[in-house]
């Protein structure tokens, strides 16, 4: 996805003089040619993440469309007040694009991991948040968000599904359960393939989204109404329950049960290794999801 991101942004820099790229060293090598051609619009500030967001806010105030990029912890967590004030409070737009989502940087340890990025951004109003599950979804998301004036966050991942699905505001249904089905499973971004495999023998509806904010409450409400039970299992690749309040809002008018899977909130996993090993430790591998789904849907 990182390569797709670079190719898409390089193309946007070429095609739209409003586009600017703001970096803090990370990934700068992927934009060297654009930096030489458009030195005023490819701005590498050095390792200065607070200035990276502040400069993006200032660029937006002049009508530019800044794309801002770094590892998730350095893009969202370190300069969080800048995101709140220099973008949100100024009513300035930008497209923030992170790599290293959740535990992608497993070998790098906690300093380079950021499972709370979306939960943190979710404390601020007015953000579009996308979690592509395939490189083609990443480029489609960028093509949707770069032309706008809004505030958007794209969380790129090292893990992909086998096939891309359309990026848009609605939940995309992959499997429809019977009228007596046990409920609905919502898979976000790179969780889809393993969710499909984990729930293959269950009578449930499986829906997918790469757009988590705004969340398709109406779509979920419709799917839950058509299912045998209005029970929802939410599988997100970041902090557990990040979208649980959206599910609650969507189903506020009826009795329902809900369970969220994601990176646990109660402990810091002090381990290196691979993203697959972290997924397993968090119960986000196929086996872990399958067990949680069976328990939750009372199969």
């Amino acid at each position, binding site marked *: 996805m990182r390569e797709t991101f670079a190719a898409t942004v390089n193309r946007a820099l070429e095609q739209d*003089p409003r586009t*600017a790229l703001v970096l803090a060293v990370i990934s700068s090598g992927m934009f060297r040619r654009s930096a030489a051609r458009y030195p*005023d*619009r490819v*701005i590498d*500030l*050095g390792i*200065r993440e*607070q*200035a990276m*967001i*502040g*400069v*993006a*806010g*200032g*660029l*937006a*105030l*002049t*009508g*530019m469309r*800044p794309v801002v990029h770094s590892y998730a912890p350095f893009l969202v967590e370190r300069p969080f*007040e*800048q995101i709140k*004030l*220099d973008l949100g*409070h*100024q*009513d300035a737009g930008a497209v923030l694009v992170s790599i290293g989502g959740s535990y992608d940087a497993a070998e790098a340890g906690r300093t380079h991991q950021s499972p709370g990025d979306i939960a943190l951004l979710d404390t601020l109003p007015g953000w579009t948040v996308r979690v592509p599950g395939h490189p083609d979804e990443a480029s489609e998301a960028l093509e949707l968000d770069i032309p706008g004036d809004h505030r958007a966050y794209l969380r790129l991942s090292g893990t992909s599904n086998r096939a891309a699905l359309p990026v848009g505001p609605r939940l995309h249904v992959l499997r429809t359960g019977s009228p007596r089905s046990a409920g609905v499973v919502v898979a976000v971004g790179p969780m889809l393939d393993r969710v499909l495999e984990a729930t293959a023998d269950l009578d449930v509806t499986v829906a997918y989204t790469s757009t988590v904010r705004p969340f398709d409450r109406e779509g979920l409400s419709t799917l839950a109404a058509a299912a045998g039970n209005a029970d929802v299992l939410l599988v997100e690749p970041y902090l557990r329950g990040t979208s649980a309040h959206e599910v609650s809002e969507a189903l506020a008018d009826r009795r329902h049960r809900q369970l969220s899977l994601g990176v646990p909130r109660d402990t810091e996993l002090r381990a290196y290794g691979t993203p697959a090993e972290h997924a397993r430790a968090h119960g986000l591998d196929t086996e872990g999801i399958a067990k949680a789904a069976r328990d939750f849907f009372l199969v």
Partner: protein
Amino acid sequence: MTTTATFSRYADLPALIGLMEGDEKHNGASVSTLDVLWVLYDRVLEVTPDTAEDPARDRFLLSKGHGPAAFYAVLAAKGFLDVPTLRGWTAFDSPLGHHPDRVLVPGAEIGSGSLGHGLPLGLGTALGLRARGVRRADRTEPRVVVLVGDGELDEGSNHEAIAAAGRLGADNLTVVVIDNASAQHGWPGGVGRRFEVEGWAVREVNGRDHDALDEAFTRTRDGRPLAVVARVRNGS
């Protein structure tokens, strides 16, 4: 517009500040930012209420957002704000709070209050104007002026922007530091050195001397951003 005509002079600023702070004995002229703000809007910045949305206007960013009464007073004196608006300041439905909000205040380029945000925003604005190639009808390039306090410079975010602006050669960016020696641990060797070492042009000036301020704000065009250190004693 009669009120604007009535309250449009430097000498009116204490009365305008009095409309907000409501203290007859308060000496508005003692506000540390007052003279710098006046000189900027009266002599330096090319921006008026009529050009407040013009892409080629000069931008003034009040980074030190606390104590904004002098700023509001100058905006009122120059016609950006209606004088009666000042009276209701900090009320629920007033556009004027103890920290300015750009979405609410006509003429305010940024919302500020939390320290250390204006300079990075100003650098981005300067870079954006340059990238867009914005020019006035007479082909001159608009400038961006950011006001910070010497105490505010404690915030590390300023130093990210000071270094980056110097390296990027943003000579359409000016910072005016209101230096009333309020930084908790001081700035040994002076505030100006922090800018100088990063490649800025630095001018130190009496922050109450209008002619000296006007001259100090003369633009650089040699690739160096400009820092004007305006020394002010509170209450002087």
